[in-house]
C-alpha cells in the first residue's frame, strides 16, 4: 500500500474545518448546525489521526473523539426535542426568548 503524503490529510482536515465553520454560520436549522460542528470535529480528528506516529495515542484519541461526538449529538437532539415541543420549531432564529439586556 502506498503511503499517502500526510499533507493531503491536512488539506482535507482544513477543508472539513472550513466547511464546518461555514455550515455552522449559515444554516438556520439546529440539525444542520450540528452537522457543521460534526464537520469541524472530524477535521480535528483527521488531524490527530494523521499525526499519530510511532504510537497509537493519536488514533485512540480520534476514536474517543468520534464516540464523544456521537454523545454530543445525542444530547443535542434530546434538547432539540424539548425545544421543538415548546417552540414548535427547530429553527434557531425563532428560538430567542432570552433577551440580552
Amino acid at each position, binding site marked *: 500500500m502506498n503511503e499517502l503524503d500526510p499533507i493531503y490529510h491536512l488539506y482535507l*482536515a482544513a477543508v472539513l474545518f472550513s466547511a464546518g465553520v461555514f455550515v455552522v454560520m449559515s444554516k438556520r436549522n439546529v440539525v444542520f448546525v450540528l452537522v457543521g460542528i460534526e464537520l469541524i470535529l472530524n477535521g480535528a480528528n483527521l488531524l490527530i489521526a494523521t499525526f499519530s506516529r510511532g504510537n497509537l495515542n493519536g488514533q485512540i*484519541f480520534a476514536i474517543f473523539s468520534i464516540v464523544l461526538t456521537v454523545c454530543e449529538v445525542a*444530547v443535542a437532539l434530546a*434538547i432539540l426535542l424539548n425545544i421543538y415541543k415548546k417552540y414548535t420549531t427547530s429553527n434557531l432564529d425563532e428560538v430567542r*426568548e432570552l433577551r440580552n439586556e
Partner: protein
Amino acid sequence: MNLQDQLLEILANLESLKVEFTLIIGAISLLIAGLITKSGQLLKSIYALTIVFAFYHNWQGFSLGLALSNSLFIASTAQNFTAIFLGAGLLILLYHREEEHATEFYFFILSILVGGIMLMKANSFLVAYLSIELTSFTAYIITNFSFKKVGFEAGIKYLLFGAVSTAIMLFGFGLVYGVSDIFFISELNEINKALPASVGLLLIVFGLLFKGSVVPFHIWVPATYQSAPNDATAILSIVPKLAAFVLLQRIFQSVGFDESWISTACLMLGMLTIVFGTLSALRQSNARRMISFGAIAHSGFLLPLVIMESSTSNEAFWWYAAAYALMNVAIFFFLDVYERKGVVQVSDYGGQSGTDWVLNSAMTIILISLVGLPPAAGFTAKFLLFGSLWEFYSNGADAIYITYLIVALFATVISLFFYLRIPYQMFLVKAETLDTQNTPVSTKIIATLFSIVLLLLFFAPQILTVMQQLLNSHIAYE
C-alpha cells in the same frame, strides 16, 4: 511490558482514581435507587453519602506524581480543589429541590464532579479532552433542568457554542500533537517553537478559558446561569471554572514562564474580563444575570493567580477559589430563596424591606463579601490577590501586574455599585407592596450560617490554609 504487568500497574494506580470511582458508583446507585423509589430523602441521602465517601477518600490522600502510564498527574492542588468541589456538591443539598427528576439531577451533578476532578488530574490530552467533554455534556443537560422554555433555549445555545469551542480546542490538541509530537501536558516544556504549535497551545488555552468564562469566551455564561436551576448554577459556576483554572495553572507551570507572550495574552484577557464583567453587571435588571456577570468578573480576579509563578499566588489561588466557591454557593442559595418568593428582578427586592431582617442582612453580608469589603471572606481573598500581585511585581515582574492591580481596584469600586443595588433595594427603598410570606426557620438558620462562615473566614483566614495543610498531610510523597 506484557499485558499482565500492564494490568497490574493499572490496578496499582487505580488508587489515584478512588474519588472518581466512589462518585461513579454513587451515581450508578442513584440511578438504580431512582428506579425503585421516588423518595427524595433517600436519593438525597445516597447523594450525600456518596460525596461524604468521596470526601473521605480524598482526605486519605494519594501518592503524588504521574500515574496510569502518564495519563494522570496527581498534585496536591487537585486534591485541594477536589475538596472544594465536594464541599460545594454537599452544600447544594441545602437548596430546595422538588422530588421530580431528583435522580437524574443528582446523577448529573455527580458526573460533573467526576469530570471536574478528572480534568484537574489530566495529563494526557485525551484525558483532558474527555473530562472537559464530561463536564460539558452534563452542564448542557442540567442547564435544561429548570424545564422552562428559556432553559432549553439556553441549553441548546450553550451546547452549540461549547461544541464549537471544544472542537477548536481539539484542533489545538491536534496541532500541538502533530507539530511537536507531544501528548502529555507534562511534556509541554519541550514544545516546538514553530508557529503551528504555538497556535495549537493557544487554542488549548482558549478552550480552558472558555470553561473559565473569561471574556471573550463568556457569552454562554449569563444565559446559562440565568436559566439553569439555582443549585445547578452554583455547581456550574464553581466546578468547570475552577477545574479549568487548575489545569491552566498546570499548563503554565509546564510550559514554563519564559513564554511570556502567552501569559501576557491571558492577563490582557483577564483585565478585559474584569472590566467587561463589572460594567455589564451594571446594566442588568435581572438579579441572577447581574450576579453571573459578577461571576465573570471574578474569573478575571482569579486568572492572574493562576498565571503568576509564585508560591504566594498559589496559596492565594486556593484561598480565593475556596472563598469564591463558598460565596457562590451562598449567593445562589439566597437567589433561590428569593426567587421562590417571586423576587427575580433587582427592583423586586424593594418589596423585601422590613420583612425578614435575618435573611436580608445575611444576604447583605454575602454581597459585601462578593464586593470584597471587610469583614468578610471576599475581602481577604481580594487582599491576597492584591498582595500576590504586589509581591510579584516588586520581585521584578512586568508592569502589567501592577496595571492589573489598579484595574482590579477600580473594578472593585464599581462592583460595589451593582452588588449594593440589592441591599439598597431591600433597605433603602420603600416599596408599595410588602412581601409577607414567611421564610422557614431552617432557611434562616442556613442563611445565618453562610454569613457567619464568611465572616469567620475573614477573622480567621488561616482556617482554610490549615485545612489545606491537613488535606495534604495525608499525601504520600514518593
